[in-house]
C-alpha cells in the first residue's frame, strides 16, 4: 500500500521527522479558508500517488486566499496525465497546502528492505529533488548505504557516518542523525517496505525538513495496523487493479497491454512465461493474468469475462500446468464456464497438463475448444488464430 504525501507526512510527524507546516484540504474553498486564517506564502500540492506532479502543473504557489482558491481549482480540474505506468491517469481528489520553504540544498534519504543482506538499508545521496533512478544513472558513486544489523538497531553514529560519507552539506550534519532515526523508527513501527524523503531540504534559515514523503507499507503486514483501513479506503486503485478486484483476483494478478492474445496461467512465474511464449511466437499480449490456485468454473468464467470485455483480445490462451491439479477437473471447469458465460465468444486455446491430462484434453476437444500439449504449441496456435480473426 502506497501512501499519499499528506498521509506519509502524518507518519513523519509521529516519528519526529521535521516537515513544513501544512494542512490537508478537500476543496478549493477549504484552501481559501485556510490561507485566509494563516496569511503567508503557501504551496498547493495535488495529493496523488503518481509521480511527476511538478511537471504536470499540479504544484502551484499562492500568496492570498483568492490565489489559493484559483490554483486549487486549476489543479483539481483535470486528472494527472497518463504515463507508461498508469495509462488511465489519476484524479486529484484532495490537496496539501504547505508552508513554502526557502531551499539552500536538496538531498535524498530512504530506508528499504535489502534483499541481498536481508537487512534494512538506509540510502543517502547528496542529490535530491530529482527522480532517484535518474540520479542513480548519472551519479551512482554518490549513493551511500548502511545495512542495519537489526540486533544492534539504529544509533546516531550510523547517521553521522552516512552524512559524512555521502558528503552532505555541512548544514545537514547536526540534524541528520535524528532524521535517520525517525525513518528507521517509522520503518519498523508501521511495517514499511520503503520510506523515502526526496527532497530532504536544507532551508536558507538552517533547518532540515522533509519536503516530500513517499511511503510504501507492506500489504502482508497490514493486518497488524487496523488504523490504516481509513487511509486505504481513499487510495485510488488504477483501472487494472479495480477490474482485478471485481473479478475476485488479487490486485496485482491482472494487467493489460493492448495486444490481441489474451492469456491466463496458474502462478505468476508461469503467467509471465506464457506472455514470453506469445511474444516469442510473434504475437502481441493483451494481458497478464495469474489465476492463482485452483481453476474452477466460476474463476475461469470471471477471468474469461474480464479478458473478453476489457481487453483487445481476439483469442484467449489458457495455460494450466496442473502439477497436483487434476486435468479433467480443470477441463470440466472451463467447459462449464464457457456454457454459462453471457459474454461474446472468442476462440480458446488451452494447454493443459497434470494428472488425467488426456481425459481433460478429450473433454475440451469435444466441446469444440483447441487443446494443445505444450506451451510453445499453444502460443503458436493462439497467435495464428489472433492473426486470422
Amino acid at each position: 500500500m502506497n501512501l499519499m504525501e499528506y498521509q506519509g507526512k502524518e507518519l513523519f510527524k509521529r516519528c519526529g521527522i521535521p516537515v513544513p507546516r501544512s494542512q490537508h484540504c478537500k476543496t478549493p474553498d477549504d484552501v481559501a479558508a485556510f490561507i485566509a486564517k494563516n496569511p503567508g506564502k503557501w504551496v498547493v500540492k495535488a495529493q496523488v500517488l503518481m509521480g511527476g506532479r511538478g511537471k504536470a502543473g499540479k504544484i502551484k504557489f499562492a500568496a492570498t486566499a483568492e490565489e489559493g482558491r484559483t490554483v486549487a481549482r486549476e489543479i483539481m480540474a483535470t486528472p494527472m496525465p497518463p504515463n507508461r505506468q498508469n495509462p488511465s491517469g489519476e484524479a486529484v481528489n484532495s490537496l496539501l497546502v504547505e508552508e513554502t520553504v526557502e531551499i539552500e540544498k536538496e538531498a535524498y534519504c530512504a530506508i528499504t528492505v535489502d534483499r541481498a543482506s536481508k537487512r534494512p538499508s538506509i540510502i543517502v545521496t547528496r542529490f535530491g529533488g530529482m527522480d532517484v533512478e535518474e540520479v542513480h544513472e548519472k551519479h551512482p558513486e554518490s549513493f551511500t548505504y548502511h545495512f542495519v544489523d537489526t540486533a544492534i538497531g539504529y544509533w546516531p553514529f550510523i547517521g553521522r557516518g552516512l552524512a559524512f560519507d555521502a558528503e552532505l552539506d555541512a548544514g545537514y550534519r547536526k540534524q541528520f542523525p535524528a532524521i535517520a532515526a525517525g525513518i528507521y523508527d517509522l520503518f519498523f513501527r508501521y511495517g514499511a517496505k520503503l520510506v523515502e524523503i526526496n527532497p530532504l531540504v536544507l532551508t536558507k534559515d538552517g533547518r532540515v525538513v522533509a519536503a516530500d514523503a513517499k511511503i510504501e507499507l507492506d500489504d502482508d503486514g497490514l493486518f497488524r495496523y487496523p488504523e490504516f483501513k481509513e487511509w486505504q479506503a481513499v487510495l485510488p486503485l488504477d483501472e487494472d487493479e479495480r477490474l482485478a478486484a471485481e473479478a475476485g483476483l488479487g490486485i496485482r494478478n491482472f494487467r493489460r497491454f493492448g495486444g490481441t492474445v489474451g492469456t491466463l496461467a496458474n502462478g505468476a512465474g508461469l503467467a509471465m512465461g506464457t506472455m514470453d511464449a506469445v511474444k516469442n511466437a510473434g504475437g502481441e499480449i493483451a494481458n497478464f493474468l495469474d489465476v492463482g490456485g485452483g481453476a474452477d468454473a466460476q474463476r475461469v468464467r470471471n477471468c474469461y469475462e474480464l479478458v473478453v470485455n476489457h481487453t483487445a483480445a481476439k483469442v484467449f490462451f489458457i495455460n494450466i500446468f496442473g502439477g497436483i491439479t487434476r486435468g479433467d477437473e480443470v477441463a470440466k471447469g472451463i467447459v462449464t464456464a464457457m456454457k454459462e458465460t453471457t459474454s461474446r465468444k472468442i476462440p480458446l486455446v488451452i494447454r493443459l497438463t497434470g494428472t488425467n491430462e488426456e481425459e481433460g484434453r478429450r473433454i475440451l476437444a469435444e466441446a469444440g475448444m483447441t487443446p494443445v500439449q505444450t506451451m510453445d504449441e499453444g502460443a503458436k496456435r493462439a497467435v495464428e488464430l489472433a492473426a486470422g480473426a
Partner: protein
Amino acid sequence: MSIYLDKSSKIFVQGITGSEGSYHTGRMLSYGTNIVGGVTPGKGGQKTAHGLPVFDTVKECVAATGATHQCIFVPPAGAADALLEAYEAGIRFSVCITEGVPVHDMLRVAGATPGMRIIGPNCPGLISPGKSLVGIMPGHVFKEGNVGLISRSGTLTYEVVDGLTRAGLGQSTCVGIGGDPIIGTTFVDCLRAFAEDPQTEALVLCGEIGGSDEEEAAAFIKRHLSDTPIVGFIGGRNAPPGKSLGHAGAIISGSFGTPQSKIAAFQAAGVPVADRPSQIPELLKERLGVRV
C-alpha cells in the same frame, strides 16, 4: 547424494492438522518422504489421519521423534513464530511454504537465526527426486538424475522440470527458493551447496525479473563454477517496468533487475540463456556434450 535433503532427513510438519498441511503431508508420505510427526498447538497427543503423532510444541516433537527438518504450512501471521520456535528447539533446516508472510517478520527472523537454512517463504519447497520431497511440488514430473535446479517460481519450475524429464535429464535436487523480498536461501547459497555435491553435474537457474539475485549468482559462477555446464532462464522479459506482477518478486526497479541486466550477467559468466523453457534441455545437452 543431493543437497539439503536425502532419505534420512527426518521431517516434521508445522500446521499438520490444517487442510493444506494435512493434504500435503499425505502427498509427501506417498512420495516416500520420511515424515516423523507434526506440530499443532492444542492438538498434542492426537494422531493425524496418516497415523502420525501430533505435538503441541516443536521441542516435544524433536525430543520424541528426533526430527531434523521442519516444513511450515501455518497462516502468514504465525510463520515467523514457527521458524523461531524451531530455531530455539535446535532445528537448523526449515522449508516455509506459507505465502504472505510480513516482510518485517522475515527481517527479524533473518537477523535472529544464524546457522539456520531456511527455504522460502512463499515457495514450493524442494525435492531430491527418488529420495525426499518437502513442500507442494508435484513429485511425478521429477526424475532422479544429475541436474540441479534452482528457481524463484513455482509453476514455471514444474514446466522446466517436465521438459528436462521428458528429455531424459533427471535431477539431483530442485529448490524453489521463493519470490518474496526476504528469502532464507538465495541462488548463491544453493550454488555453494551444489558445488560440493558429487551427484550434481549440471545446473539450471530459473530467474525472474526484479532484484539482483541472478546478477550475484552470475558473479559466483564466474569465480567458482566456470567448469560446470549451466543454463539460465529469465522469466518475465515482457513485463512492464515499475509494476508488480503477481507476487512481490517480479518487480523491476530502476536499473536493477531488468531482464537485460540479468541476461547480460549470465552470458558474461559463460551461461547461455534460453529464450523459452522448452530450449533449456537442448542447451543443457549441448553444454554437457562440450564437456564430455
